[in-house]
């Protein structure tokens, strides 16, 4: 209830407190706080960028989720780092989702898009099925909505074909990659 009240304030200064709430190992409360943070909008991105809790992967996953939902280009470094280095699959999954949706800064378009695509290709090789699932989602998303450099687009399609094949262990990842190829009219 206190969390709901804090969210209702709509005050960016409440962001720090809401981030602390994400660390309580209480999914009901964390879900409310996450929605509250997303509603506060991009003003809170600087707060989020300095508030990753190194000892609590549950909290990190929620923070990366908020950052992904806000789609702010300032989150790119953190999302890339989270995908490359975080030991928790839930954090890498949320980071992959973020790279799929991140709004690209028009002045840095080529470079930022390239980094998002490289991240998604890397996620396609992850050990955990849920990160590869997010990669299939993300590659579809980027190929459908943006014009990607042809050499990267070829790599993206090859990755989706690989995720759709018997080389992929998890049936649900194969299903998702097949769906992506269908939606891209590549099958």
């Amino acid at each position, binding site marked *: 209830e206190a969390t709901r009240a804090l969210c209702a304030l709509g005050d960016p200064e409440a962001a720090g407190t809401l981030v602390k709430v994400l660390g309580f190992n209480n999914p009901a409360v964390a879900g409310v706080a996450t929605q509250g943070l997303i509603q506060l909008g991009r003003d809170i991105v600087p707060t989020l960028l300095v508030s990753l809790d190194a000892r609590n992967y549950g909290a990190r996953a929620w923070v990366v*989720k908020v950052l992904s939902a806000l789609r702010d280009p300032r989150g790119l470094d953190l999302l890339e780092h989270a995908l490359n280095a975080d030991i928790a699959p839930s954090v890498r999954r949320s980071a*992959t989702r973020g790279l799929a949706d991140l709004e690209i800064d028009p002045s840095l378009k080529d470079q930022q898009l390239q980094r998002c695509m490289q991240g998604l290709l890397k996620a396609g090789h992850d050990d955990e099925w849920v990160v590869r699932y997010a990669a299939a989602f993300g590659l579809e998303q980027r190929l459908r909505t943006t014009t990607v450099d042809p050499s990267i687009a070829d790599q993206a399609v090859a990755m989706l074909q690989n995720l759709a094949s018997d080389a992929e262990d998890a049936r649900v990842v194969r299903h998702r990659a097949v769906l992506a190829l269908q939606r891209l009219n590549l099958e």
Partner: protein
Amino acid sequence: MEPLTESQVIENLRQTEDPSAQYYAAWWLGKMRSQHPDAIPLLLATLGALDDSPVDPDRRGVALNAIRAMGLLKDERTDGALLDRLHSNDYSVREEAARSLGTMGSHAAAEAIRSLLASGLDGAGREQPSTPLLQEPCEALLEALGDIGINDAATLATIKPFTRHHRPLICSAACRALLQLTGDSCWGEQLTQLLLHPEALVRRGALLDLGAAGWTAAVPMIQAAAVEPSLKLVALRGIAENSGNQQVLDVMDALL
């Protein structure tokens, strides 16, 4: 640190000086679904430590990991050893053996598992004095019966009393098994009630049980439950793979 190669892992399991290296090796072979010709014989060899007196706690840990790996490798050469271990006097060994036999869908194990549960709520389901354990690892045994998938009258009659156990996670396991075996939605509805339980642990357990049973009608309730997205994704994976329903993938996309 460089990742180990399969042949290094095999050698780590073969040696007996360093149980922690064996412990990791047993886990690795299961996780990676190793097809190495020595994997199964070496995993089986670790079980001998369970018959020592007294049992060495480190070697017991290796054996428990080996039992889990056998469940993932699904090799019929391990059937006999796992069946024997259902009668171990070590609760955790019985529990892990039941889980592995369930994962393997071992029809040969069904009767032995049923007999461990046959004493019902006042026997198998009774609490052991001054520990959090029940007399038998009921959750693992119930889940195994659901996974094995024999839906004869004797199996159903053995499981049903546990839907009224005073511990919600035992009820959840029993409902999951009955839903898998009969497809009767009344068990699914009882599981979805547990998604509203005040304790997060119970909500998480019920959510994973709904996923394991692959009950498509539960998707909206899973979506709305107050549980971490990572667990919802695991549950929905089970339903997506069971049903082949594309709408489940859309729900999963929204949770990433």
